[in-house]
């Protein structure tokens, strides 16, 4: 159950400050290890910058205090993620996907359009549209907090990653992290990652697979990724259409209200009742849209990114395999030339070791990933179905009520 207590300070169209407290993670409940509990109880949004309050409660002695909070920006999360990705030791792990940058473009554009169209609406209509928009801002905000929170909770519940030194710094360091963030490297790292991403498909498919498990996983993940990416995009479009309908209901309600106000005939009551219904309807439709967004679209989106992280693991393993094969070739060559054989042998041994380690941990990670995915889908599907039923029952009640009123006139 999520409890939201937003406090709005709307200072014009260009600046919206939101303060947001106490939303628990809706997706998967990861905070089950009491030794390290992380949440984001509060966040502040000013223009484009979101400041998260990262709160940690821990019984671990590795931390200086048992209960503390630090302010963090999105870039800090990215830094943490990239650092983990580049850590050799974690090559065999699925690194939880980095949270996407907070994106307020869509509601901000709508806010602009609303400002421009202000003259054509009644004051009431305008107020309602503004309310809707503020709800949308809040929804985007909610999502971004959630996704940042889940990232940290994934880390804290991972037996290996939770012990990462940088993770600890992230949680604890009470100064600005930007000094540590080495922006240049981050930028370069990003570029490198992107370059690599397009290459990894080729590499993964090109490498001769020795293990059935990984062969299957490779096929599965590549295919699944493209499908889930497609579904995510389509779900988003569907949700957007729902939102448009909710907005239309606002305009319909407002116009019906104007008509009713000027109407001196028997029709007045009919119009008033219909206007009232549409006003209530738009709230229901709005909730349907946002619930669908959270339970379906966001679910698909999250696992799309997670699968990308799994693919990254496969890539690293494939690269390790390629390295190992190359080291074999180098060893053969060394033996032929009778030169540098011990180094070649050592190199080959290391490559094999790395590859074996990756394969072992990779198998574990991918298996648990499956389980995690199934659990998450189940939870969200159940919640979505329940919400759809709830909203539809609400609509039914509203419609029945209105029909009764109209008939009784």
């Amino acid at each position, binding site marked *: 159950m999520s409890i939201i207590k937003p406090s709005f300070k709307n200072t014009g169209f260009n600046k919206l400050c939101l303060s947001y407290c106490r939303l628990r993670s809706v997706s998967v409940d990861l905070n089950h290890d009491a030794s390290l509990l992380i949440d984001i109880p509060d966040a502040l949004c000013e223009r484009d910058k979101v400041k998260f309050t990262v709160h940690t409660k821990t019984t671990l002695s590795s931390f200086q205090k048992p209960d503390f909070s630090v302010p963090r920006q999105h870039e800090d999360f990215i830094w943490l993620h990239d650092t983990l990705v580049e850590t050799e030791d974690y090559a065999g792990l699925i690194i939880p996907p980095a949270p996407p940058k907070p994106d307020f473009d869509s509601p901000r554009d709508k806010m602009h359009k609303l400002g421009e169209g202000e003259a054509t609406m009644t004051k009431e209509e305008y107020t309602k549209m503004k309310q809707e928009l503020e709800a949308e801002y809040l929804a985007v905000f909610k999502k971004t907090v959630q996704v940042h929170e889940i990232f940290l909770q994934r880390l804290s519940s991972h037996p290996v990653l939770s012990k990462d030194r940088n993770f600890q710094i992230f949680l604890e360091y009470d100064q600005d992290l930007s000094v540590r963030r080495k922006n240049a490297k981050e930028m370069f790292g990003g570029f490198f990652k992107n370059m690599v991403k397009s290459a990894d498909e080729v590499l993964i498919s090109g490498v001769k697979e020795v293990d059935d498990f990984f062969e299957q996983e490779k096929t599965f993940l590549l295919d699944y990724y493209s499908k889930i990416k497609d579904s995510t995009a389509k779900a988003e479009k569907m949700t957007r259409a729902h939102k448009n*309908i909710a907005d*239309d209901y606002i305009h319909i309600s407002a116009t019906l209200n104007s008509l009713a106000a000027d109407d001196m005939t028997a*029709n007045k009551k009919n119009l008033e009742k219909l206007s009232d219904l549409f006003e209530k309807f738009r709230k229901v439709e709005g909730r349907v849209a946002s619930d669908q967004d959270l339970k379906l679209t966001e679910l698909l989106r999250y696992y799309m990114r997670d699968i990308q992280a799994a693919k990254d693991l496969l890539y690293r393993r494939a690269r390790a395999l390629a390295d190992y094969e190359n080291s074999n070739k180098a060893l053969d060559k060394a033996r032929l030339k009778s030169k540098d054989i011990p180094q070649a042998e050592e190199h080959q041994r290391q490559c094999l070791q790395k590859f074996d380690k990756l394969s072992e941990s990779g198998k574990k990670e991918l298996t648990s990933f499956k389980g995690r995915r199934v659990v998450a*889908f189940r939870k969200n599907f159940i919640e979505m*179905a329940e919400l759809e039923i709830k909203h539809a029952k609400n609509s*039914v009640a509203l*419609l029945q009520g209105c029909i009764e009123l109209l008939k009784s006139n």
Partner: protein
Amino acid sequence: MAASSDRNPPPFPTAEESEPGLCDMADADSDEGEDIFVSNSNPVSVSRGVSQPDRVSEEPSDLFSEEAASSTAAKANGVHSDDDNDLFADTNVELSTDKSSSSARKEPSGPRHASTFTPSPAAMQPTSLEQLEEEEAKDSFDVDVAVTNPEKIGDGMNAYVAYKVSTRTSLPMFRSKVFSVRRRFSDFLGLYEKLSVKQSLHGCIIPLPPEKSVVGMTKVKVGMDDPSSVEFVERRRAALERYLQRVVSHPSLLQDPDVREFLEREDWFEDKFQEVENEEQQLRKLHVVVDSLVIHRKELCGNTAVFAKSLAMLGNSEDNTALSRALSQLAEVEDKMEQLHQEQAASDFFIFAELLGDYIRLLGAVRGCFDQRMRAWQRWQEAQSTLQKKREAEAKLLWANKPDKLQQAKEEITEWEARVTQYERDFDRIGMTVRKEVLRFEKEKAKDFKSQIIKYLEAMLQSQQRLIKFWEAFLPEAKAIA
């Protein structure tokens, strides 16, 4: 406000008084020493209007603050016959039979308001120039008029442009502080014509309305969209506004009942027409939004179908058996949702949008009836003016002593008198019909809307109930995922 607001009779004429005019008149008019200013200072307004047209009156607000209650009963220029002390109680009140250019939609009782009466025997009492100027300075910009929103009414050669005349005032003689009426160009002309023949305003500089323009108006009637027509209308609108502003800044004119009537009088037909127009406008707006709803609903339909397919593909890819099944089931639910959205879009269009479209057109037909009544009024007015002309012609013939033509003239007069009667009867009849029809239409509309809305909502209700069934069927599938 000057001292006339207190009821004591003004002292003998000494220059210190702020209303020397009153004193003068009192002296001049009343034979008794009795003060005629005990009650409503009505006689003052009369005499002022009659005997001293060149005297600029004091602030009208002064005067009318007392007669606020009875202003609506004005029969002649401020004469109140219910007043015992009214010197002019038996003043002759004549109906002016002006040209047809008076307010088109007014009831025929419109011109009933007096415009002439016999001049008072009282002599004029010229006051000092200083006093005149002093009164001038206390000008009453307590009235603000604006002419806006030119709108073409009707089609073809019968079309005309209606302007919104808005008045903002603090004067109590008006019915409210802010109000507006619709008037057409011929109404403005009619006002001018009425004012220019009034004996009471003889000698006053009556402001002129803009000139008629056959060419200009024809262009507008035919098609208003080209820039020269737009410019023409705008020039006319601005000129009419200036005209009215000059009229209301003239203190005598402002008091004139015809002016007041021009600014504020509405009747049932006027109001109703306005209502119909407003409603049509709003319905159009609503129609646009409902159209948008239909489009969005169809989009949702399409997006849902596409999503369902994508989800089915995903389900095929899924290697967990139960989850794969659930995904396929969800894809099926979304397919059914698409069907529901499709039906809802049809309902949005065929029931809701079409209802609105029908009534937008029907309201146009209602406006047509009002226009017909208007034309009947015009025909009657024109006949009246023709009759007047014939009478004048007869008078001329009498004077010129041409007995042979006289007979024909008399016949024509009889003929036109009959016509006038006929047209007046037609006008009254059509007025009653329109009124009845409008009421009938309103009743029908309420019934129609109610039944269509119920139909629309019941369709939506069914849709939602089916939706519940679909999701309730899916729920166990979701729970079965393991």
